[in-house]
Every structure is written in C-alpha cells, then in structure tokens.
C-alpha cells in the first residue's frame, strides 16, 4: 500500500479545534452527576445521555469533515498541540489529532456508547445506585474518547489509566458481592502489569525522540525522522529501540485488550453489570489496546531486529493468533452466558491483533468496528436474556427462550451469525474474511492462518452451542421468563441493523473502509468478487461456518439436556473438557507462580519490617525519649520559672491597663477627644513656633 501524504495542515479547522469537547462533555456530565446532592436518577440519566448525544453530534461533524477532505483527494490529519509543562530544556506537549482513524473510532465509540447508555436506563432500572452508575459510565466514555483523540502518547496514557480506573469501578459496581470486588481488583492489577511496560516504553520513547506527540508537522514521534532515529538506536538483545519500544507498548495493549498471557481478568470482569460488559469489555475499552497498536502502527512497522525486516508486528501476530485459538477453545466449555461471550471477545481481540499484524491497520480496525457492534449486540442480548430470566446466567438453566423473548432472539441470532461469520450478509464475515485473507498471504509463516481457521470453526461451534442452549429446546429454569422493555430491545434492533449493514463498507469489491483509513481513493471493482482467490476465501469461510454450526447443532441441537446432567462433550472426552472448563489452569498457574512469589516476598518484607527496621526505629525512639526527659527536667525547673515570673509581671501590667478599659463608651470617647485636643494644641504650637 502506498501511503498518499496527508494534506499538510495549515490551521486547525474549527471542528478540529473543538475536538476536545467530545471527551470533555461526558466528563463534565460525570463531574456534575458526582456533585448531585441526592440521587437524582432521571437527571443523571438525562445528563449522561444528553452529553454523550452531543459528543456523537460533534463526532459525526468531525467524521464528515475528514470525509470531505478525503473526497477532495487527501484526507485531513489535523493536530492541535500545546505545551503541557516545561522543565528546563525539555518540554512535554499534549494535543489531539483528527484523522480517519480517530474519526472512525470517535463515531463508533460515541454511537455504541449512546445505545448502551439508553439500554442501561432500562437495565439498571431497579438499582438504587443508578446515579453512581451513570457517573462512572460518563466518566468512562469521556476517558475512552480521550484515548481516541489523543495525539500524544502521554495524554493517551492518562486517559488510558482513567479508563482502567473506571473499568475497575464499574466491574466492582456491585462491590457488596465479594466475587465482584475480587474481579475488579484482578482486572486492575492485571492491566497494571501491562501498563507498567507501557509506561516504560513511553519513557524510553521520550528519551529517544524527545517528544511524545504522534504527529507534529514532521517532528512527531510517529513520523519518518523520529522513526529513522529509533531504527538506528540499538537496544540490546539485537533489538532496535523501535522494536523494543514497540514490544513494550504492545505489552500494555495486550494487558488492556486481554491478550495472552494477560487475558485472565477479562472473563472475571463479567461480574460487572451487563451494560458495562457490553460497553467496556466488548465494544470500547478492550478495543483500546488494538486502537493503540493502530495508532503507533508506524512504530510497530519499523524493523525491530537490527538489520532484518522482521518487525514487532510478528510478535503481535503470533500472540493474537494464539489468543484467538486459546480463548475459542476455552469458550467452548463455559456455562455462564456472559463468560462465553467474554472468552469469545478475547478470541476476537486476538483476531484483531493478528489482523493488525498481518494485514495492516485497516484490516484490524475494520474487524474492531464490526466486532464492536455485534459484540455489544450480543452482550446486550445476553443482558436482556439475563434480565428476562431473573438474573439467571447459567445457560443450562435456560432454553426455549426463542418463544418467550422473540424481540431479543432475532437480534441475538443476527449477532451470533455475524460473530461466527456467516457469509455475505453479515459484517463479521467480511471483517474476519479480511483477516484470514491477510493471514493466508502472510509471508512469514503459515501457522497463524491455521490457528485462526480453527478458531473460526470453534467460534461458530460455541456460538451454536450457546444459541441452542439458550433459545432452543425447552425451558429448564425456574419461574417464568419475560420479554425485556422496549428501551432495551430497541438498541438491540439498531445494533443488529449495523451488524449486518456495516459489512458493505469492507467488501473487497468496494474496500471503502480500508481506502478511507489508508487514505486512498475507493473504487468499485465488482470484478474482484469473481476472482478465484476471493471465491476461494468465500468457500473456505462457508466450509468453516458450515462445519462449526453443523457440529454444534449435531452435538447439542434442540435437544435440551437437563441442567445437572453433564455436557455432551464432557461425556465424550471428559479430560479434555475438564482442561477447557478450567481454562487451561492459567489462573491456577498464576496462583502458584506469580502470586505465590509475591506473597512470599511480602512475608519476607513484613518480617524485615517487624524485626530489623522496627527494632532500629524503636531504638532511635528510646534515645529520643531519653533526651525528652532531660529537656523536660530543665524546662520545668529552669525555663518555666523565669517564664512564670515574666508572665506575672505582664499580668500585673495588664491589670493596670485593664482598669482603663471600663467598658464605658463615653469614657473612651472622652479620652479620644482629649487626645484630639492635645494633638491639635501641639500642631498649633509647632506651627506658631
């Protein structure tokens, strides 16, 4: 792909100048809500939704602006930078950027976010802490949008951390549930591991290039000059600085978007309210990692091993592919409806990473966007199901909901088909197709391709399993399921529409999206559809989907096993099942390695504190006490004595003066007048003399 130079930015257009408003509005709303005196639920809802709605408007305007520029030849990349702090010679700049990438993300985040806000009003109806919820939600939206528009790695990192914080708050929203609290902590700490690497990478980048701005009229860190410098700088282990920094930043991204080996927090994060899962852990936040990689793509692209052409993207690819396969496997054996979706999210994120690694920004981002829509759809559908089944999350205790909740079923089915990549009509197909195609043509190795294919099959399989458990068969739960209110199902419908429609933007025939992101002209070449390789891909996908769904239906079909009886596969090959159900024992592994290690060290440190330092401190304190005793003695017998004397004298003098203070106004006045007289007399005499 030949990169057509962006139009040189003259002065930031008004919309670019006002870009900061987009994150500012939700944050403002959050602040206001935080200061509401008593829980004003409706007001809080109105504030958050209204502010995000305005952000959406602005985002659309910005998008239109970029689009316009693109239509006239080259898309705009407008940056607004300002100096944040100056320390001697070094100065740290912040700023925001408006280019196709950020514009697309802005629209996606605001739109999906808005839908999910609306959905939450219905979902959180009966929670008494709605106000707090919406405060956090708005704060999150603001932070996420901040991440999106950031033109400086530092600003991005700030918002990044803010996002982490809000995700922590929202996962632990029902903090009275110990599991939720634990999950929140886990999420926070796990992502923190990644963030430490990220921070390291950032600092390193700064020390190398002296700027954290991405684009700054050729002076930014993502622009050729800086990259060339990075390529030359060695970093040990045969890595170039570029490679090392890229890897560090990728570690951060992996933490955020749950790549191996930092994926463990994401499934647990499902303890949070479902809208949160939909918004944060499906559509936006987890995508932040992908977005970050896309943002620093030039850096990742730059050669990492000195001399060779291999780049950090290789690592990204492998990790992504591995994650995709791994998570898909695990997802097969889960019974919690949201956990299944969570693992599927992890695996899809793996796809995105792989797509970034092999096919470039457009491929990964396209899958990100489509996935955001249909995964949000799936989560909200799941939420609606849970809502309808009286907070029941175990799919074995559901079934046959297709009849009870048709208005949830249809969108959910669409989402499912989009996720498993049913050809032609569903956006998931086109985006995943793009990734597979890229994988197929990847020069480095064929491994990822096969992993991804298997992953795709599994995806179709577990989604089928879930569907048949939840919507087919007959009702196994207790009580009676009911359809959710329109405020919840309407967003589902909208999202469903997009889940199908979005595909049209990324067909090989009319690669509009790709062209837009890579800033090339988009031409319609229907001929491509006829080309053999496309047809081949189509066939492959069809096979994949057919195998996946077919297997799933064969194994589970609409025969609804009772809640307690073991799963079909479990009966067939229990050992495998056990492994999958326990997620390859990753958590346990961490428990016995990392966590044990830290615990041990903590104990050691504790012992040190108590015995060594504690002893030293107490020794010192004893010495001081002794000194204090001495000084007290001399105080009491020497200083105080003299002081008391002085005080007595003062008191006596005060008594004398106090007698003047008779409290009689007129006496004061008299004295005053006398003083005046005396002064005047003095004046007169002096003037006479």
């Amino acid at each position: 792909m030949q990169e057509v130079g962006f139009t040189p930015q003259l002065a930031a257009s008004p919309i670019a100048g006002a870009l900061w408003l987009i994150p500012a509005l939700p944050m403002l709303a959050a602040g206001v809500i935080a200061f509401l005196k008593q829980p004003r639920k409706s007001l809080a809802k109105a504030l958050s939704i209204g502010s995000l709605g305005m952000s959406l408007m602005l985002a659309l305007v910005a998008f239109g602006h970029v689009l316009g520029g693109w239509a006239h030849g080259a898309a705009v990349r407008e940056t607004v930078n300002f100096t944040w702090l100056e320390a001697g010679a070094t100065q740290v700049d912040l700023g925001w950027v408006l280019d196709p990438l950020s514009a697309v993300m802005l629209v996606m985040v605001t739109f999906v976010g808005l839908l999910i806000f609306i959905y939450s009003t219905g979902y959180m109806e009966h929670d008494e802490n709605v106000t707090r919820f919406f405060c956090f939600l708005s704060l999150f939206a603001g932070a996420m949008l901040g991440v999106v528009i950031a033109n400086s790695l530092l600003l991005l990192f700030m918002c990044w951390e803010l996002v982490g914080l809000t995700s922590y708050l929202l996962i632990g929203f029902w903090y009275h549930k110990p599991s939720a609290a634990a999950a929140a902590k886990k999420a926070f700490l796990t992502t923190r591991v990644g963030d430490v690497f990220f921070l390291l990478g950032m600092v390193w980048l700064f020390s190398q290039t002296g700027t954290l701005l991405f684009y700054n009229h050729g002076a930014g860190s993502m622009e050729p000059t800086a990259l060339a410098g990075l390529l030359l700088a060695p970093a040990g282990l045969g890595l170039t600085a570029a490679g090392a920094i890229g890897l560090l930043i990728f570690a951060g991204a992996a933490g955020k978007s749950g790549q191996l080996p930092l994926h463990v927090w994401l499934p647990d994060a499902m303890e949070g309210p479902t809208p949160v899962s939909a918004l944060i852990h499906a559509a936006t936040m987890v995508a932040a990692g992908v977005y970050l990689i896309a943002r620093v793509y030039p850096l990742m692209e730059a050669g990492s091993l000195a001399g060779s052409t291999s780049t950090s993207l290789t690592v990204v690819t492998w990790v992504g592919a591995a994650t995709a396969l791994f998570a898909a496997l695990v997802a097969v054996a889960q019974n919690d409806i949201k956990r299944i979706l969570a693992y599927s999210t992890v695996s899809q994120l793996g796809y995105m990473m792989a797509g970034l690694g092999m096919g470039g920004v457009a491929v990964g981002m396209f899958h990100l966007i489509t996935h955001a829509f249909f995964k949000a759809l799936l989560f909200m559908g799941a939420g609606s199901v849970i809502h309808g089944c009286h907070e029941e999350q175990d799919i074995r205790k559901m079934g046959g909901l297709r009849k009870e909740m048709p208005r949830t079923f249809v969108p959910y089915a669409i989402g499912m088909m989009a996720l498993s990549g049913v050809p032609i009509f569903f956006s998931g197909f086109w985006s995943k197709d793009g990734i597979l195609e890229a994988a197929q043509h990847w020069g480095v190795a064929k491994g990822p391709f096969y992993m991804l294919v298997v992953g795709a099959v599994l995806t179709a399989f577990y989604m089928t399993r879930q569907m048949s458990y939840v919507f087919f068969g007959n009702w196994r739960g207790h009580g009676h399921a009911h359809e959710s209110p329109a405020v919840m199902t309407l967003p589902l419908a909208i999202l469903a529409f997009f889940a199908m429609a979005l595909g049209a933007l990324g067909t090989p025939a009319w690669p509009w999206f790709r062209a837009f992101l890579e800033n090339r002209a988009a031409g319609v070449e229907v001929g491509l559809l006829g080309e053999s390789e496309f047809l081949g891909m189509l066939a492959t996908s069809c096979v994949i989907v057919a195998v996946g769904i077919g297997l799933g239906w064969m194994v589970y079909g609409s025969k609804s096993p009772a809640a307690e009886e073991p799963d079909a596969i479990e009966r067939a090959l229990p050992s495998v099942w056990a492994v999958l159900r326990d997620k390859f024992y990753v958590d346990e592994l961490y428990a016995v390695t990392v966590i044990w290690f830290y615990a041990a060290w903590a104990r050691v440190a504790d012992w040190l504190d108590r015995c060594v330092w504690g002893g030293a401190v107490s020794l010192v304190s004893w010495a001081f006490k002794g000194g204090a005793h001495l000084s007290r003695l001399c105080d009491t017998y020497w200083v105080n004595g003299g002081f008391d004397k002085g005080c007595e004298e003062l008191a006596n003098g005060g008594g004398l003066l106090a007698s003047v203070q008779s409290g009689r106004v007129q006496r004061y006045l008299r004295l005053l007048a006398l003083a005046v007289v005396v002064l005047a007399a003095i004046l007169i005499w002096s003037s006479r003399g």
Partner: protein
Amino acid sequence: MSIAFWIIATLTVVAALAAVLLRNLVHCALSLSLTFAGLAVLFLQLDAQFAGFAQILVYVGAVAILVVFAILLTRSSETPKDGGVFSPTWLAGLAVAAAVFATVAGAIVYSVNGLPNAQAVPSVTVLQIGQALMSRYVLPLEIVALLLTAATIGAVIIAMHEKPATKIGGAK
C-alpha cells in the same frame, strides 16, 4: 457677614443646644431635625443648593424619622425618673467638649487673617455634579452604594427579631 446668616446660625445653634439639653428625647429629636433644616439653609447660603436639599431629604426625611422610631421602640420617650438624663460624669464630658471647642475656635481665630475672603459665586449646576459623580467620583459613588446596601441589610438583621409567622396580630 449677612444678617440672614447670623439669624440662621443662631437658630441652628440654639436648636442644636436644645437637641442635646432637652430632657424629653422626642423633643431632642425634633429640635435635631430643626438643626438639620438650619444647616440645610446654611448650605443654601453657601450656594450648595444640591447639598442643601440632599441634607433635608436625607436628614429631616430619613435620619430624624429613624431616630424617632428608635426612641419609641426603646421606650425612652418618657423622661427617666431615676437620676436624671445626664451621666454621673457629665462634668468631665462638658469640660472635654469645652476644651475641644476652645482648641478649634482658637485655631480659627488665630488663623482668621489667613482665611480667603469672599470668592465669586461658583455656578454649579446639578448637571455638573451628576457628571462629576459619574466620571471622576464614580468609584466612591459605587462604594457608597455598596455601603448603603450593606448598612440596610445589616440594620434590618440587627434590629429585626422574628416572630413566628403564624401568630396573628401582634402589631406594635
């Protein structure tokens, strides 16, 4: 020195004396307002028309009334039976006052020759005053406005004591 001046001056001074000497406070207040009126006339004689009328408006119209209200509200309109109206140390006070007067008067008399003699009557229209107030003296004007507002609120808060609003009647 016009004859009118002397008449007015004597009137004013006598009224002032009455204001501080009379036993009945209301009489004091009334003669005080008479003093104010006399002073206003003196202002007029000094060609300070605006100040004169302002004097009447503010002092006779407002301050005197205020004083009267205060007198009635503190029930001091009846002359106290016990120990007269003068404070036990009235002699000292008188002495001091006399001393002050002596000093000032002495100063005046001593410098009487230095004082400027009659000037041409300055023709000051209200328009000029207004313009001066709005241009050169605008800051003091604002400050005075602020002060008056503060004083009003303060006075109300100090003097007002709430009755339960439900209580019917109870007019003073």
